[in-house]
């Protein structure tokens, strides 16, 4: 039995799924959920003895009795506006404790050929449309949390774009945790189906109401068909006492282009797995990531890019900043299959340690079976550059301000790749507020 075997509390929850799924659930879905519950029960929570979980011990989650969220918490539109990105003109779907809240959402004016609905709504009437999409990309080979999400699935977002449909305004998915008691776990799922030549920007955004200490366990499945362009923002800005585990599965067809921005600012214990499969020639992914860990935060990101077809491209840049007793992990795997000639894969991980008690582990992992490829990777962990610091000081800029400028610049090199200025600006402000030189950073944000 693994060290993180399910406690009685979770074993009971699994039993409830296996015996008590509502009878109106389509058979295929009931089967998938029961199967997932069984696999979760068998695997237990991930264990640090597993290679994929070597740096992250989820004991704090496994030993807490997170409840299933029942009560509907009252949230005002003003509160939601305060959590949203200032100035972002977007369609908005709001979820509170994993449940869709239409009265707080705004999907007015969506163009023809686009479906944006809640998962619960779709399952109510058109469940069969989801059969080929739901749980067909996700798997739990690397993380039993993905199985838990399937088993306990609460609600989520379904986004389906028809052929050639371009959605001009971004779609903001705001998933908010409340300070409900007892602390609950939520299992939202995001499904994105971008048909041929369609285009969309999706901002998957996690935030909390004051005092939240729940656990969000998410799964995102994203399919980009031939020529589709999808920009996916994943912004994790939970309360410092909240837990977050997210698994993202991306499958790309011919000449599709996906851009991923993964920013982690909050959370007590956070883990993301991004699994990318480039299955046809011309598929291209750009992965940008930034995490800031301070206090006693732990943020772990694993990316796995699978080049399974020739002429595919991946560009990956992750940056981490560690302060206080923060702990960060980045592991980036690139797998180039035998037939995937002319693969162009670049990965870079740069990390900044601002405190002697912070720790960041970074580990690139390249596995290449083709011989005509261009693959490069680099990883650094360091401190602020003394020469740059001296240069700024020699211009009259004080040491603290100079340090702030350099840290901010380090982070901003990732953020400046974001096309949505209001998202970027808002993240910059949040970032600046969390750096020790917050006061002097106002001029830049």
């Amino acid at each position, binding site marked *: 039995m693994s060290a993180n075997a399910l406690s009685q509390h979770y074993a009971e929850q699994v039993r409830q799924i296996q015996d008590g799924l509502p009878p109106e659930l389509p058979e295929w879905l009931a089967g998938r959920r029961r199967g997932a519950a069984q696999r979760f029960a068998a695997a237990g929570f991930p264990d640090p003895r597993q290679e994929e979980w070597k740096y992250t011990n989820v004991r704090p989650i496994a030993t807490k009795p997170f409840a299933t969220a029942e009560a509907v918490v009252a949230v005002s539109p003003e509160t939601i506006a305060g959590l949203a990105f200032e100035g972002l003109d977007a369609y908005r779907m709001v979820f509170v404790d994993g449940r869709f809240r239409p009265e707080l959402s705004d999907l007015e004016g969506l163009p023809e050929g686009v479906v944006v609905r809640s998962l619960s709504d779709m399952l109510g009437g058109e469940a069969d449309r989801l059969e080929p999409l739901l749980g067909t990309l996700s798997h739990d080979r690397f993380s039993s949390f993905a199985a838990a999400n399937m088993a306990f699935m609460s609600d989520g977002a379904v986004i389906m774009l028809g052929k050639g449909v371009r959605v001009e305004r971004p779609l903001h998915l705001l998933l908010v945790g409340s300070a409900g008691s007892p602390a609950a776990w939520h299992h939202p799922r995001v499904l994105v189906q971008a048909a041929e030549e369609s285009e969309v920007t999706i901002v998957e955004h996690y935030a909390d109401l004051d005092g939240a200490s729940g656990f969000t366990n998410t799964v995102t499945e994203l399919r980009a068909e031939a020529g589709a362009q999808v920009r996916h923002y994943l912004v994790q800005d939970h309360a410092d006492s909240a837990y977050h585990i997210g698994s993202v599965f991306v499958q790309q067809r011919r000449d599709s282009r996906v851009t991923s921005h993964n920013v982690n600012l909050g959370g007590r214990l956070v883990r993301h797995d991004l699994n990318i499969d480039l299955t046809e020639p011309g598929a291209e992914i750009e992965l940008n990531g930034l995490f800031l860990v301070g206090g006693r935060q732990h943020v772990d990101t694993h990316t796995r890019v699978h080049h399974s077809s020739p002429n595919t491209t991946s560009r990956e840049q992750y940056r981490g900043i560690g302060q206080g007793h923060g702990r960060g992990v980045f592991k980036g795997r690139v797998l180039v299959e035998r037939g995937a000639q002319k693969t162009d894969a670049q990965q870079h991980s740069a990390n900044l340690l601002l405190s002697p008690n912070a720790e960041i582990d970074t580990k690139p992992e390249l596995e290449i079976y083709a011989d005509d490829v261009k693959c490069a990777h680099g990883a650094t962990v360091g401190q602020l550059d003394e020469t740059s610091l*001296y*240069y700024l000081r*020699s211009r009259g*800029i004080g040491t603290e301000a100079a340090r702030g400028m350099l840290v*901010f610049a380090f982070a*901003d090199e990732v953020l400046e790749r974001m096309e949505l200025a209001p998202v970027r600006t808002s993240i910059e402000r949040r970032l600046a507020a969390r750096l020790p030189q917050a006061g002097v950073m106002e001029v830049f944000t």
Partner: protein
Amino acid sequence: MLKINDLHARVENGTPILKGIDLEVKPGEVHAIMGPNGSGKSTLCQVLGGRDGYEVTSGTAEYLGEDLFALEPEERARAGLLLGFQYPVEIPGVKNIYLLKEAYNAQRKHRGEPEADTFQFLKLVREKLQMMQMDESFLHRAVNAGFSGGEKKRNEILQMLVLEPKLALLDETDSGLDIDALKIVSDGVNKLRSADRAIVLVTHYQRLLSYIEPDFVHVLSDGRIIKSGDKTLAEELERSGYLGIIEEAA
């Protein structure tokens, strides 16, 4: 303005490099310090700038009546001593305009003045950009990142023009410049010249001095100033080389 007295210095725990420098610079004067490679030119600049890793073993430097070595690098700059770097540092992610504004305001704050209004500040910077024949897009580029050698040096002088130092110390500002860039940079330095400002040019070559005429020329060799004179000393150097002067002084 600056009074250096029997200054000895070395790289931390290394062998002595400066072995007794004496130099006095008064407002309005332009001094050139010339010397071959390894004579101590850069060490002198870094010691005066306050860079970590250099150690003053004896001697003093007085700047505007204060002990220069008691000041942090940023305090020296705020007090009007600015060092133009031989190798200006590339700082990705920090825009030129931010550096300029932060530095400008640090100085104003030091003098007890309110921060500059953005509009006024931009107007000032645009004027100076024009003097250096630099495009406004420079302001939004990261400090020196990807700049050519000439652009970096022009950027150093641009900072000087904006920050208006009392004493500008230019470390090999002419190195790596083609003739056009040299002319622009020299013009910029000449615009800095005024009755209450002093300039110290540290250089290996005489050619800079045909654009910026110094009042005094000093020859630095093995950590000491072995000869001082007026601008004709530079011409003499050009004719007989460092070796001639060094032998003559020995």
